[in-house]
């Protein structure tokens, strides 16, 4: 074990496992946990489909059904879709920008533990029949103090607090990593498109999530300490909740979709064996989506009778956001058209699946964007079909493509292609059989979230068909997990750059060592590994008795100084535990916040307090800014 391996290695055993700050170990854990939530929520959907398969069914009563769809929605949105995209980013972004870890490794660990405990809380309250039952957006007054008795909506509000704190910290981590820890020469104009997508998503998260945190805090104070935010009789307003929620709600669906655009922009050029067409246009499209997403939220409230002129503005904005997405699709098609013959490996199959499914979702989205049409389609099964087309088609398909694409990098072994094709075709056919009929059901007047329907309604046939489709999707997800389980050990060994891709992550070995790159490569273009003579230069001289990496300047990615990253530490896990206790305690008594804050403060101080050994090693290699600055200027002149 050379000194660098020794410095970056984690302690063995359970304590080592709990205190790792390696962004890859945490990233894998993050992805596995979010996929576990995906399966759990998927099983809830299966039960819902069984209940809806036949009219006047009695598989589950209304109370259980309400908990089923509320937990299905909340878990899929807050515990799977958004976090899984952050999870693959926290794994890939450091590798893609050419650095050794995220900017705040311990915050990264803390954010994972928080999400895990939030998810476990939701599963536990579901098991004890105390799960939220007012839908994933938990409209007031149904979730309010009078019509939401017991602790159900409080657990929903606390789930929001868990996942939003975790998401916000992940966003700050990604922004700082992308801005400050890029490899020398990787200017913003040479950033991989997935990293651009994650940067846009992180900024959206930064400014959207506070809105729902405030809304859930006001809801919990309304329910527990009798504030009057949403009480129409005392100056409050029921629409305030919808404004606050959807101001976050619409950017949220773009937290899920924009990273998927990034995934496609990484996979597609590799299979076309050609650089992306219109790189700048793609970046502009991503940033435009990020801005526009904040101006659309009222299209979720078209039916509340707001003034028509306002609604026309939001109709126009909602319809116009189809433009940047359309531009992305055109650029991808142009890349394929000017590339080489494409090999239909599993990752690319899922990308093709994305095109066929997502574009239907996008077009129905434009229909829902029109306030007049929305008055017929809103809160009907047409919307259920649309949201699944854009979420599963737009995000889960590229995500599965990403799993097949990066699995060799993460484990050093390939997923089986045959199982991959079974997985894809079962998913593609099952999905369309399950969700396309819902468009028709919506037009036939089937409202959303009904636990049963009379035979006279005429919806029985399509609902049965939809249930069959849903079980086909379940089968395909099972095939995927069997594939992953078998390939983890017995999968075909994969070379470092199995697809011949151009990203920096393929320059690191598979699976990459804890420090990713012993010598960080310099970058000269947008597709480093396709540059002749890569790497033109390599960084040497990073001290290896501390966990060090290179900080580069924001605007020109020139070396600036050496960052000494913190060692592994158990404190983030303990701080997450203390936060969990405080959050859950505050559901039962507001004093839980004050008393719960004490252990939390102690763990945070433990986390911050420098350790003697770590400080000693840092002092040994310390170079003060002024002494080092002369060296920086000299170095910059010498660069080729």
């Amino acid at each position, binding site marked *: 074990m050379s000194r660098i391996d020794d410095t970056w290695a984690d302690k063995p055993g359970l304590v080592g496992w709990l205190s790792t700050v390696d962004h890859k170990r945490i990233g894998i854990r993050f992805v596995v946990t979010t996929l576990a939530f995906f399966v759990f929520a998927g099983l809830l959907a299966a039960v819902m489909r069984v209940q809806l398969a036949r009219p006047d069914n009695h598989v589950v009563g209304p109370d259980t059904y309400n908990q089923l769809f509320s937990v299905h929605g909340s878990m899929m949105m807050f515990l799977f879709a958004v976090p899984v995209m952050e999870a693959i980013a926290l794994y890939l972004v450091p590798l893609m920008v050419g650095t050794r870890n995220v900017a705040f490794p311990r915050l990264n660990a803390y954010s994972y533990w928080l999400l895990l405990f939030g998810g476990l809380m939701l599963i536990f309250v579901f098991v004890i029949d105390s799960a939220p039952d007012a839908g994933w957006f938990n409209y007031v007054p149904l979730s309010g103090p009078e019509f939401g008795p017991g602790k159900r909506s409080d657990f929903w509000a606390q789930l929001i607090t868990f996942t939003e704190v975790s998401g916000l910290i992940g966003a700050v981590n990604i922004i700082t990593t992308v801005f400050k820890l890029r490899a020398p020469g990787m200017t913003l104009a040479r950033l991989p498109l997935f990293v651009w997508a994650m940067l846009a998503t992180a900024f959206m998260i930064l400014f959207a999530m506070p809105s729902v945190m405030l809304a859930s805090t006001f809801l919990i104070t309304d329910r527990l300490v*009798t504030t009057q935010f949403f009480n129409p*009789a005392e100056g409050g307003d029921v629409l305030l909740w919808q404004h606050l929620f959807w101001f976050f709600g619409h950017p949220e669906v773009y937290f899920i979709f924009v990273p998927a655009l990034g995934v496609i922009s990484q996979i597609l050029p590799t299979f076309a064996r050609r650089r992306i067409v219109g790189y700048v246009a793609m970046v502009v499209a991503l940033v435009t989506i990020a801005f526009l997403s904040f101006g659309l939220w009222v299209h979720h409230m078209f039916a509340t009778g707001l003034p028509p002129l306002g609604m026309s503005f939001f109709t126009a904005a909602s319809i116009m956001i189809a433009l940047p997405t359309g531009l992305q699709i055109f650029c991808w098609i142009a890349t394929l058209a000017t590339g080489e013959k494409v090999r239909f490996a599993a990752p690319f199959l899922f990308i093709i699946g994305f095109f066929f499914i997502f574009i239907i979702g996008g077009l129905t989205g434009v229909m829902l964007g029109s306030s007049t049409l929305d008055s017929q389609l809103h809160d009907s099964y047409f919307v259920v079909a649309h949201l699944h087309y854009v979420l599963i088609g737009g995000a889960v398909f590229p995500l599965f493509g990403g799993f097949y694409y990066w699995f060799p990098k993460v484990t050093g072994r390939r997923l089986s292609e045959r199982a991959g094709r079974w997985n894809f075709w079962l998913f593609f056919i099952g999905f369309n059989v399950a969700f396309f009929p819902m468009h028709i059901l919506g037009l036939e007047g089937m409202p959303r979230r009904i636990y049963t329907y009379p035979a006279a309604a005429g919806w029985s046939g399509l609902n049965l068909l939809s249930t069959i489709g849903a079980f086909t999707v379940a089968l395909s997800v099972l095939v995927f997990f069997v594939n992953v389980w078998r390939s983890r050990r017995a999968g075909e060994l994969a070379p470092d750059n199995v697809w011949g891709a151009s990203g920096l992550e393929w320059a690191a070995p598979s699976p990459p060592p804890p420090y990713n790159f012993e010598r960080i490569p310099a970058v000269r273009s947008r597709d480093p590994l396709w540059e002749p003579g890569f790497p033109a230069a390599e960084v040497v001289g990073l001290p290896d008795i501390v966990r060090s990496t290179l900080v580069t300047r924001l605007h020109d990615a020139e070396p600036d100084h050496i960052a000494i990253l913190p060692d592994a530490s158990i404190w983030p896990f303990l701080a997450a535990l203390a936060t969990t206790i405080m959050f859950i305690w505050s559901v039962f008594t507001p004093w839980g916040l004050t008393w719960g804050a004490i252990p939390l403060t102690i763990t945070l101080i433990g986390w911050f307090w420098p350790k003697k050994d770590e400080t000693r090693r840092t002092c040994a290699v310390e170079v003060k800014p002024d002494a080092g600055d002369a060296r920086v200027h000299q170095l910059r002149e010498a660069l080729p």
Partner: protein
Amino acid sequence: MSSRCPELVVLALSLLALGGCEREQRRFSEPGGSTVTVTTPLSDIRAGGVAVATPVKAPYDDNAYAISEGQRLFQWFNCAGCHATGGGGAIGPALTDDVWIYGKAPDQIFSTIVQGRPNGMPAFGARIPNQQVWQLVSYVRSLSGELPKTVSPSRADAMYFGKPPAEREPVTQPVQP
């Protein structure tokens, strides 16, 4: 970890589960709540050494949903007309303080509602089914803090009469029976 430990953990979890589970149950159909006999003692004064009857446990004292139904029925059946919204007391006596003219045990409140009381309390026996009377009993007990905070309902989406402590009017003298 000793082999017995998993069982203990599962036992603890299920106990915790039962605790949480009970409060959150939505029991729609009527429980087997016992109908209270006429011989419910109204006060603690006993003739001779007669043994006290075993206290009847209200079926809904630990069920948040039933108590919130009680809150709704308190408004619907116009109990608030005499006892004021939130039970603060108007023509009828206040239900939020610790003064109970006809006893505060669940079965005593049940019989007060069913049989009615002098000075204006009507008999609701034939008018309100037993399940709803038990819901009202539990709600009335939650008004005076007999039940834990986690079960008692919070504010209603209406004018808020539970003014903060600093602003509550002084409790009126209890009506002499």
